[in-house]
């Protein structure tokens, strides 16, 4: 009897990973953003000797500590889930993917773990200079850990620096720098880290605005706003810049994701960018002829400009990517999804034949099969795809998440610019309306950040590794019940801990910073 992977196992495994990743990403951006802000504040204390800045930094460090602990907890689960729930993936690409994870542990986690202890417990035990160094090294360690895991993630979106070895039946790294310095990795790192700074800034500015609303600790609140709003403005501008780079990389490396982000079915030259739009729920299949939009407003030619750096550049849509036939940038004609699936199956069969020939010690036949495998390996992952329609990622989630992310990104540019302006003009303290807006904007920063990851991860489905391995071939052989059980256990545990974290934060914020008498 031919055994098949249970599709609900794939979905539950995906759901569990998504759950863990989304919870993890509630805490990481605040760590990355707040970490820099508190380090700037402590640097001012070091330079000026004003204890006000020490106490201000200590208050934000208290919040940082509450957030940091749960970030570590959820991060641990993520690392091990590659093995527990995606075991086939772990073997197939562990030779490449494992390396950044190990480097992350050796070079970044230990730096973080070592110096965070000094940062929290070392105020009266080490010198001012040593303490400041420890604070900076904590956030540098956290950022370096982001670097390595993002290199690993970028590699999944754009597999580079590797070669398939039919003898070991896995992909093997042959160029470390191609993995570590791929344009997708560099862009992803900067875009993710600087966008995390937005979350940290929005948090500090929002909480400080609450103090102003309550007419408490105004020097602390205004001082915090001054630093965080300026930092946030710089971060939003950098995020917009790296976001453009990110979109360009998606267009070049993952055109199907770009098409899903734009709801673009029919591609062409000089394609417009959908500024706002509502997808048509009546559209059931990519080729049913139904208009994909109920309503949309486009910015003419802008998608071509962003995707190809050319107002009249060609951008393929979903139909073009499925049917093929268009001319790619390298001058070749794109093949259809059906052809890719066929060639993927040829590659998988050639691998099986190669292994058999090797077993039979028939080197001539083995070499022939190997040649066939190598000629078709580019499409290896397609061999596991049952239906070409499965190659289209969930459109609604990708499309709307992208718009939410971009619109909120624009909103934060304006908000931080306004906050900087009002603070400089000494009008912040009286602008109650702005204080409310700043406070209410905290969740928006989290929504934008989560939406960005939804675009990146949902938009690349069905691939675990682009074109090489779909999620259906990556999953561990477990019972659906086991994964369901751990999914709900994680859901309950993380939710309880999140509620506890928020409760502790609210109490700590309400208590406010503790100032020495001379500092406030």
């Amino acid at each position, binding site marked *: 009897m031919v055994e098949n992977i249970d599709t609900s196992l794939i979905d539950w495994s995906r759901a569990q990973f998504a759950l863990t990743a989304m919870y993890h990403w509630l805490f990481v951006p605040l760590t990355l953003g707040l970490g820099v802000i508190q380090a700037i504040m402590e640097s001012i204390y070091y330079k000026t000797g004003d204890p006000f800045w020490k106490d201000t930094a200590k208050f934000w460090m208290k919040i940082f500590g509450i957030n940091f602990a749960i970030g570590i907890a959820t991060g641990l689960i993520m*690392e091990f889930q590659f093995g*527990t729930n995606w*075991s086939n993936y*772990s073997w197939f690409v562990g030779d490449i993917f494992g390396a950044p994870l190990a480097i992350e*542990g050796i070079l970044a986690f230990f730096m973080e*773990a070592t110096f965070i202890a000094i940062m929290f417990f070392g105020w009266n035990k080490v010198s001012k200079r040593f303490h400041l160094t420890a604070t900076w090294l904590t956030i540098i360690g956290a950022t370096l850990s982001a670097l390595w895991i993002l290199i690993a993630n970028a590699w999944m979106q754009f597999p580079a620096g590797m070669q398939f070895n039919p003898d070991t*039946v896995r992909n093997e790294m042959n160029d470390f720098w191609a993995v570590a310095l791929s344009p997708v990795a560099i862009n992803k790192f900067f875009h993710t880290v600087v966008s995390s700074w937005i979350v940290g800034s929005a948090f500090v500015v929002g909480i400080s605005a609450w103090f102003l609303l309550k007419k408490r600790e105004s020097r602390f609140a205004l001082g915090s706003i001054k630093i965080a709003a300026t930092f946030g403005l710089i971060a939003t501008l950098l995020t917009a810049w790296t976001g453009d780079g990110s979109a360009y990389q998606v267009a070049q490396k993952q055109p199907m994701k770009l098409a899903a982000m734009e709801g673009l079915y029919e591609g062409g030259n000089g394609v417009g960018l959908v500024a706002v739009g509502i997808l048509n729920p009546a559209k059931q299949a990519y080729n049913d002829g139904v208009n994909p939009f109920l309503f949309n407003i486009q910015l003419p030619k802008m998608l071509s400009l962003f995707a190809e750096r050319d107002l009249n550049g060609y951008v393929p849509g979903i139909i073009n990517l499925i049917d093929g036939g268009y001319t790619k940038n390298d001058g070749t004609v794109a093949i259809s999804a059906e052809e890719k699936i066929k060639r993927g199956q040829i590659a998988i069969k050639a691998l099986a034949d190669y292994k058999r020939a090797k077993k039979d010690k028939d080197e001539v036949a083995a070499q022939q099969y190997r040649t066939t495998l190598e000629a078709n390996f580019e499409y290896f992952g397609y061999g*596991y795809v049952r239906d070409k329609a499965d190659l289209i990622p969930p459109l609604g989630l990708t499309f709307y998440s992208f718009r939410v992310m971009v619109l909120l990104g624009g909103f934060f540019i304006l908000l931080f610019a306004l906050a900087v302006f009002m603070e400089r003009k000494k009008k912040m303290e009286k602008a109650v309306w702005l204080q409310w807006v700043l406070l209410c904007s905290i969740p928006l920063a989290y929504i934008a950040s989560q939406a960005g990851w939804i675009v990146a991860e949902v938009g690349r489905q069905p691939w675990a590794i682009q074109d090489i391995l779909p999620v259906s071939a990556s999953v561990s052989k*477990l019972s659906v019940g086991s994964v369901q059980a751990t999914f709900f256990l994680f859901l309950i545990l993380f939710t309880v801990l999140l509620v*506890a974290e928020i409760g502790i934060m609210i109490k700590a914020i309400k208590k406010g910073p503790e100032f020495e008498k001379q500092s406030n």
Partner: protein
Amino acid sequence: MDSTYILLQQYWWFIISLLGALLVFLLFVQGGQSLLFTVGKTELQQKMMLNSTGRKWEFTFTTLVTFGGAFFASFPLFYSTSFGGAYWVWMALLFCFVIQAVSYEYQSKKGNLLGKKTYQIFLIINGVLAPILLGTAVGTFFNGAEFSVNKENLMEIGMPVISSWDNPWHGLEAVLVIWNVCLGLAVFFLARIQALLYFINNINDEEVDKRSRKQLIPETALFLVFFLAFLIHTLVQDGFAVNPETKEVFMQPYKYFMNLIEMPAVLVVLLVGVVSVLFGIIKTILPGNWKKGIWFSGVGTVLTVLALFLCVGWNNTAYYPSVTNLQSSLTIENSCSSLFTLKTMSYVSILVPFVLWYIYHAWKALDIRKIDKKEMEEEGQHTY
């Protein structure tokens, strides 16, 4: 096979073994948690204990993550086979660590939803279960697990999974093997011994000191019972050997004993480690006020665990044997990464001494002032 490749495989097994050994040493944090209400009789004493071993919890956590990451990078087939197969053991372990990660920071904070006691219970759960589960899981390295590996499954389009577990218990069956549990309990009592020695060294409190010294005796007795039972059984049992020519895995009488004989350096490391652990404990128990037991016991623990890991991986031994499908057993040769990856990772590993150097200095800077009641009662200081 390329001799550099063979050397790198051995080298990476050494790194994994060292990380595993450091992890077992750092489980003194868990040991401290499990003793929270045994040694700490007042709230202040408990707070000192939490702030003594507790301030090192991130090192244990980080070492666990690095141990996992390094295993993934150097022996990915183990990562995919064991984690994907012994699902429930690893998941239970992860749950234990998740509840620990938040408990130190949250337990004394207002608005923590579950109350101080709940977080302290979380710490005790982690303190008891984490060493036992970890030790039990490592016990399967010596006693085997029930799995099959077939890389050719990748060519089965409908079911391309190469590693599968051969029973529905997904790792829970490991607790039915008494020798696995013996190792788990030995690790547990060792973690408690280390914690007691650490309290003696790190807390300036007469009562905690006195109670820790008293508690050392029963903990040591129980540790010795389980550790010696495991060790003697391991040395006399049939082991999972690999034919270096054919790569066939077969059962060899006294394999692990023979490994120590054939690798005298490993035997010396094991003996020095065991003696060092016992010296650290016994000298602390003896009358006097000796506080340096943790140094000897700590170094001894690292050496002992290192030797056991080397014994199960080196010298043509299957380090993760399958009892249901012997030829699916994992060896450092059939489960390791490519030459290129091991070489690249080796360059990174050169930085490990630098990492250990700054950890040592940062740790020393924090521990130079011992934990005392005064520090716990100081206003405005960050404490657990």
